[in-house]
C-alpha cells in the first residue's frame, strides 16, 4: 500500500519575531523547521507501513531549501520524497496550495492513504488537508487521534470537544492527524545516511498540468491583507472600603456589565 505524508517547512516559532511596523513575520535569520504538527501524520504513516507493508512518500511544496523537511522525513523512515518547487507556486493560499498538492499526489500516485497534520504553526488555517481531499474528490477524516488498519479499512478515532467518534473508511482517503495520535520516533543513523543521499523527485507547475492562473498568487482567491496582534485591553476598577462593601461593589459592577 502506498502512503503519502504532506509536510510543510515553517519558521521555528521558538525565536519568532514580528516586525513592529508591518506586523509581518521577520524571517531573516530564523531557522526553518518541519512543521511540528506534521511529525504525527508522518509517524502514523510509518507505523501503518510497518504494520501492513508498502511505502511512505514524503511530499512538500516550497522553495528548494524545503528539501530539508524531506530529509528529516527520510531520516525518520520515509522511503522516498517529492518536492513540488516552482517560482510560480510562490504566494499560494490554502486553495492554490491544496490544488497543487492534490495534483502532485495524482501525478505521482495513486496513494491509498494521504496523511496531513492538523495545521501548520505559521498559518494555522487547518485547510490544506481537507482542501486536498476536496480537489481529489475523495473522503476525508479530520482530527484523527488513533489509526489502525484492519479488514481492508482504516479504523480511525476522531477527537471532538466532548468525546471521540470511531470511523472506518476504505482507501483512498485523506486524514489529518492530531498530536494525541502518537509519539514520533527519533531519526535513526541509517535513516540519516539515507537522507544525506536523498535526491527527491522534483516537480514543477508544468509537470502538474497547471496553468499560471491556477497556481501561486494568481491562483489564490484569498489574500492576507494585514496581520494584527490581538489586543487584550482591560478596564481596571479598584474596589475600596470594607470587605463586605467591596464585595457589594464587585457584584454591582458585574451586574452592570451583565455578567452576574
Amino acid at each position, binding site marked *: 500500500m502506498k502512503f503519502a505524508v504532506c509536510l510543510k517547512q515553517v519558521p521555528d516559532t521558538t525565536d519568532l519575531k514580528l516586525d513592529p511596523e508591518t506586523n509581518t513575520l521577520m524571517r531573516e535569520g530564523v531557522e526553518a523547521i518541519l512543521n511540528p504538527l506534521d511529525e504525527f501524520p508522518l509517524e502514523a504513516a510509518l507505523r501503518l507501513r510497518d504494520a501492513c507493508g508498502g511505502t511512505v512518500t514524503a511530499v512538500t511544496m516550497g522553495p528548494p531549501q524545503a528539501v530539508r523537511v524531506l530529509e*528529516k522525513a527520510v531520516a525518520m523512515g520515509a522511503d522516498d520524497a517529492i518536492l513540488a518547487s516552482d517560482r510560480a507556486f510562490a504566494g499560494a493560499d490554502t486553495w492554490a496550495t491544496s490544488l497543487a498538492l492534490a495534483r502532485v499526489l495524482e501525478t505521482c500516485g495513486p496513494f491509498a492513504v494521504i496523511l496531513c497534520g492538523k495545521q501548520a504553526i505559521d498559518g494555522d488555517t487547518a485547510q490544506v488537508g481537507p482542501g486536498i481531499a476536496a480537489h481529489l474528490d475523495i473522503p476525508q477524516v479530520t482530527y484523527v487521534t488513533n489509526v489502525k488498519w484492519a479488514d481492508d479499512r482504516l479504523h480511525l478515532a476522531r477527537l471532538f470537544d466532548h468525546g471521540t467518534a470511531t470511523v472506518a473508511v476504505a482507501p483512498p482517503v485523506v486524514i489529518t492527524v492530531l498530536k494525541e495520535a502518537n*509519539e514520533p520516533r527519533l531519526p535513526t543513523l541509517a535513516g540519516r545516511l539515507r537522507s544525506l543521499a536523498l535526491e527527491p523527485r522534483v516537480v514543477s507547475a508544468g509537470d502538474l498540468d497547471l496553468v499560471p492562473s491556477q497556481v501561486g498568487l494568481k491562483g489564490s482567491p484569498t489574500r492576507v491583507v494585514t496581520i494584527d496582534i490581538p489586543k487584550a485591553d482591560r478596564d481596571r476598577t479598584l474596589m475600596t472600603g470594607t470587605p463586605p462593601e467591596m464585595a457589594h461593589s464587585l457584584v454591582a459592577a458585574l451586574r452592570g456589565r451583565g455578567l452576574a
Partner: protein
Amino acid sequence: MDVLTPTVCPGAICPDLVEGSDLADYGKYLADESRRSGTADALAFPRSTAEVCGAVNWAKDRDLGITVSGARTGIAAGAVPDGGLAVSLERMNRVLGVRTAGDGTFLVRCQSGVLLSDLQHSVQSGTFADAASFDAESLAAVESLKTQSLFYPPDPTETSATVGGTVACNASGAHTFRYGPTRPYVHGLTVVLGDGRVLALERGRDVVEQSGEFLLATADGQEAVVRIPEYTWPTTKNSAGYYAAEGMDILDFFVGSEGTLGIVTEIEVRAIPAPEMSCAVVTFWTSEEQAVAFTETLQDGRDMLSVEAIEYVGPKALSMLRNRRTQLGATSGVPGCLPETAHCAIYLDVGTSRDSYADALSKLAGVIEDHGGSPSTCWSAVERDERERLRHFRHALPETVNAHIAEIRKTEPSITKLGTDMAVPGGRLVEAIGIYRSALREAGLDYVIFGHIGDNHLHVNILPRNAAEYRTGWDLYHRFADAVVGMGGSPAAEHGIGKLKTDFLRTLFHDEGVRQMLQIKAAFDPHSRLGKGTLFA
C-alpha cells in the same frame, strides 16, 4: 630569570559586608551542591578586582581565612566556608572585552562570576550584554566574531556554573574527549593573592624555567625561589591537586587549584572555530563487552571518525530509564522507541566539516556494524527539537537516580548517593569495570554505572539502602581509588577534591607529593588564608 611580581592594588576598596545576624538571610552562600553547609564571620560581594583586594585586606587585618565561591554548583564542598570571610564572586559578572588571536581563535576576557552558559551563548551568537562598555578593539573583534561560527569548548553538565568556578576545578564534560578540559582554553588570569596583591598571568609569557623553578617577589620585597613539584601528573583526566609539568605556564597552578592559591577575578578564555556540521547518535548494545569494544575502536580512530564525545549508559542505568518510561510514559524524557533488546547504550557527538560529514557518519555506521550493532536502531539528532529530546533522555538518568535516593531517604535520612569520579588510562577500562562490578556484587550493593567512557572516566553511583550500606559504599570507594591510582589513573577526575575527598589527594600523590603541593601553597598564600579545609584536611 624574570621575577614574577604581584602588584599592590592602588584602588583597593572594601565592598559592603554582610555580618552578624544579617548573615542568617544569606544561608545559601554558606553551602553548595554537595549539600554541606558551613559558617562565616562575614560575607562579601565584590564587583571588581579592586573590591576583592579590599575584601582580602579586611580579612588580613583580622587574620581571618577566606573562602571563595561562584555559583556554588560544585559537589565537593570547595565553596563551603569554614569560618572567616566568604567571598561570593557572583556580582563580578561582566564580560570585559574581546580580541582576535590571529589564528582563527578569539580571546574573551571576563570577570570570573560570568555564567558559563552566558559566555557560551555570547561566543556563539556574537551578542555581548556588556558591549556598550567595550573599547574599539573589542567592538571590531565582536564584528569579526559575528561573521564566524565559534564556541568555547568546556561543557560541564552544570552550565549554571560560573566561568571562575570552572577554572577553579578545571571543569570537564562530555566533549572533553575531543577538546580537553578547561585548562588549555585559559589564556590569561588576574589573581588576587591571600596578601591582597594582584598577579596578572598570561599563557606563554609567564612560564617556569627549564630548571623547574621560578622567582616570585614576596610582599616584603624579597625574591623567593619556587620549585615546581616533581610528582607525575596523571595522563588521564584529573582535577586533584596542583598541576605540575616541565616548562609549565604559571597560570596552570591556579587552574584547578579550587580557590586555595588565589582569588581569580578575571579570566581570558579562548574561543575556537565550531564544527560546521554536528550530529548526536545514541547506539544500543546487547552486552557491555560490545559497548566497551566499540568505545575502544572509537578512541583509536577519534580523528578519522570526528567523534567529540562518548558517553555510557550502563545496563542498570538503562533498566532504570526503561522503568521510568513505563511509569511516566512520554513525560519521562525517555523516547518510546528505546529498542527492546538494548542492554546498554553509548551516546556520541560527531562534529565535522561540511565536506567530511557524510563520510564521518558512514564510517561510524560501519564501526557500529563491525561491533554487532545496528545503525537502523541507533537514534540520531541534528535539529534543535531532536537534540532537545536527547538532552531530556540524558538528564532523565540523574533525575531517576536522585528520585530513587530521595525515596530511600524517607526512611533512611542519613544516606546519600555515593558518586565516584575516577578515570583510568587507556586500555585499562575493562579491568576497572571488572573491579567495580565484582566488588559491588560481592558487597550486595545497588549501583548504576554511566558517564564519560570515552575518557575512561565512568561514574559509579552507589545507591545505599541503609546506613550500613552507605559505610560499605565509602569503603569500596576508597578501595576503588587505590586500584585506579595503581593503574595510573585519578580518583578525582573532574569534580575536584574539595573538602570531601582530601584523603584521595594523598592516595594519588602520596605524602611527598602533598608536601610539595603545600610548598606551592606557601609560596602564593604564605599565611594559608585561602580555602581552609579544601584540598588539605
